[in-house]
């Protein structure tokens, strides 16, 4: 069987630190894959390697069987991998609709020459882009006037907007970096619903999440990283009883957040 997304032995070093160490990571089409691990275990770095923000020192990344290791990030987005960021990276001075419209950029074609010499076709495309953007906002349930300037959005809605923007690229895989962080329980529920809806729309989801009830609740399979290495992989149930995982979370006394997560993991 061919995986939609696969890394083979990817390694990334920052100076002396090996952030991601020879990780083999396979994601099947249509699943929701959780990616967990204590702080600094290399989860975000792995996402950055997949989306092309970093180039791995060793190893390769494959998308639908094709290597994408050295492609520019915008090319990878064009192929069908979208992502959100751990700390929102929205276009704050643009409206929420415009934010999502930028996501449509790689699916539209109008150049300046169209705007100047074929204004009709450029205008039609712009109208379609606007409508598509509204549909994406609607999909994640962001009910604000489209002209609303993004800088005024509260945190929870910013996360939704980032997801809407990623969806506007019409991805096959969406990588979500801690989408539920800093959210209250009702917002968390909302985001879980949105993620399920994304999967139901046929999009494969890879989600990094510290909140154990969330990640264990929605993931089909979970991969655990520690110190840049993959230490476990399996269904949420298997992961919760894996001794290596429990040790990774409890083994370090100075890792306060990590032990909280483990406690949550056992509760859930």
């Amino acid at each position, binding site marked *: 069987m061919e995986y939609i997304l696969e890394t083979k032995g990817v390694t990334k070093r920052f100076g002396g630190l090996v952030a991601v160490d020879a990780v083999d990571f396979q994601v099947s089409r249509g699943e929701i894959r959780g990616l967990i691990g204590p702080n600094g275990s290399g989860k975000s770095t792995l996402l950055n390697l997949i*989306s*092309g*923000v970093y180039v791995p020192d060793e190893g390769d990344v494959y998308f639908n069987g094709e290597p994408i290791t050295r492609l*520019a*990030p*915008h090319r990878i*987005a*064009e192929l069908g991998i*979208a*992502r959100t*960021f751990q700390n929102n*990276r*929205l*276009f*704050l*001075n*643009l*409206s929420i609709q*415009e934010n999502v*419209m*930028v*996501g449509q*950029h*790689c*699916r*539209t074609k*109008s*150049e*300046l020459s*169209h*705007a*100047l010499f074929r204004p009709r076709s*450029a205008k039609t*495309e*712009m109208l379609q*882009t606007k409508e598509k953007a509204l549909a994406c906002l609607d999909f994640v349930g962001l009910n604000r*006037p489209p*002209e*609303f*300037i993004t*800088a*005024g959005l509260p945190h929870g809605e910013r996360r939704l907007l980032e997801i809407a*923007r*990623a969806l*506007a*690229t019409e991805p096959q895989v969406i990588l979500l970096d801690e989408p539920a962080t800093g959210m209250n329980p009702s917002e968390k529920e909302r985001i879980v619903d949105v993620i399920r809806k994304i999967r139901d729309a046929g999009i494969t989801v890879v989600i990094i999440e510290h909140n154990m009830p969330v990640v264990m609740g929605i993931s089909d399979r979970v991969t655990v990283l520690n110190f840049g290495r993959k230490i476990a992989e399996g269904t949420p149930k298997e992961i919760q009883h894996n001794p290596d995982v429990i040790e990774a979370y409890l083994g370090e006394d100075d890792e306060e957040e990590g032990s909280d997560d483990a406690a949550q993991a056992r509760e859930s």
Partner: protein
Amino acid sequence: MQRTSFVNRKIVFYLMLIVIAALIPQVVKSRYYMSVLNLAAVYLILAAGLNIYLGYTGMMGFTQVAFWGIGSYASALGMINLKMPFWTALPFAALFTGLIGFLLAIPSMRRLKRFYLSVTTIGFVEITRLILENWESLTKGADGLPGIPRPVLWGIRFNTPHKFYYISLFFVIVLTALSYIIKNSRVGLAMQAIREDELAAEVIGVNTFRYKVLAFTLSAVYGGVAGSLYAHFVGYISPNVYVFQEAVTVLCMVLIGGSGYVGGPIIGALLLTIVPEWLRFMNEYKALVYGAAVVVMAVYMPRGILGATETIRARIRQRFFGEKKASVYPGQ
């Protein structure tokens, strides 16, 4: 139905502005003031070019003054040495400057970020000036080029500030309209996304390198047009016009008017060329007032005059043009 009438009102409004601008030479008799307005147009076009690069795409640079110089010399030499008419020399200058901008952008945009890029652009300004000064066989060096011919169209020689004003006004309108079209196009939106967050733009599918090169090249084209107009309006050019200080002036125009707004360079350029004329009586303090104004602006109106008046303008637009309700804009 309602909506179309509102759209028409907007067009009527801008047409009225153009008509008023076109009537100015009939009212202002002073040659001197008309010269000031022509120079304001040159600065306006320079600032509009910088606005695409700085205001839309969010990159810092001082190259506008170098493009101005290159455009001036390309146009003047095109007319003198190659016997081009003005209407060929101006597009030639614009394209030539655009080409230089493109060639400069390719390596700089690939490698350099933020202030390293700004410093490179300062270097480019100096290099351009030194070339203009030392390539004596072509540019006549520091003596400058005198006797640059005036434009002629349909038998009319545009040899007075009053006549030349119509040429300036024409290019101001065309290039402002172009700025507007760019800003509201798919490409302009991508540029603004780069300004807001370059990495995020790249990761969601915007070829940031391509649009940064495009923005830089467009600003060079604007610089080339401004240079050509300047050369044929003044009739004499020399390398010491295109100095770093002028780059700062153009930068201030964009920032004070409101960077990223189509109208920003218009307000900024008019303000910074006309107000200093009123301050002539206190010439020795001019720089002081100027500096203080920039500081005050930077602290209290970081988004320039148009940015500071955003809410009021949105209300006016809604009232007169029936535009959608003002976006909720958080305070600065």
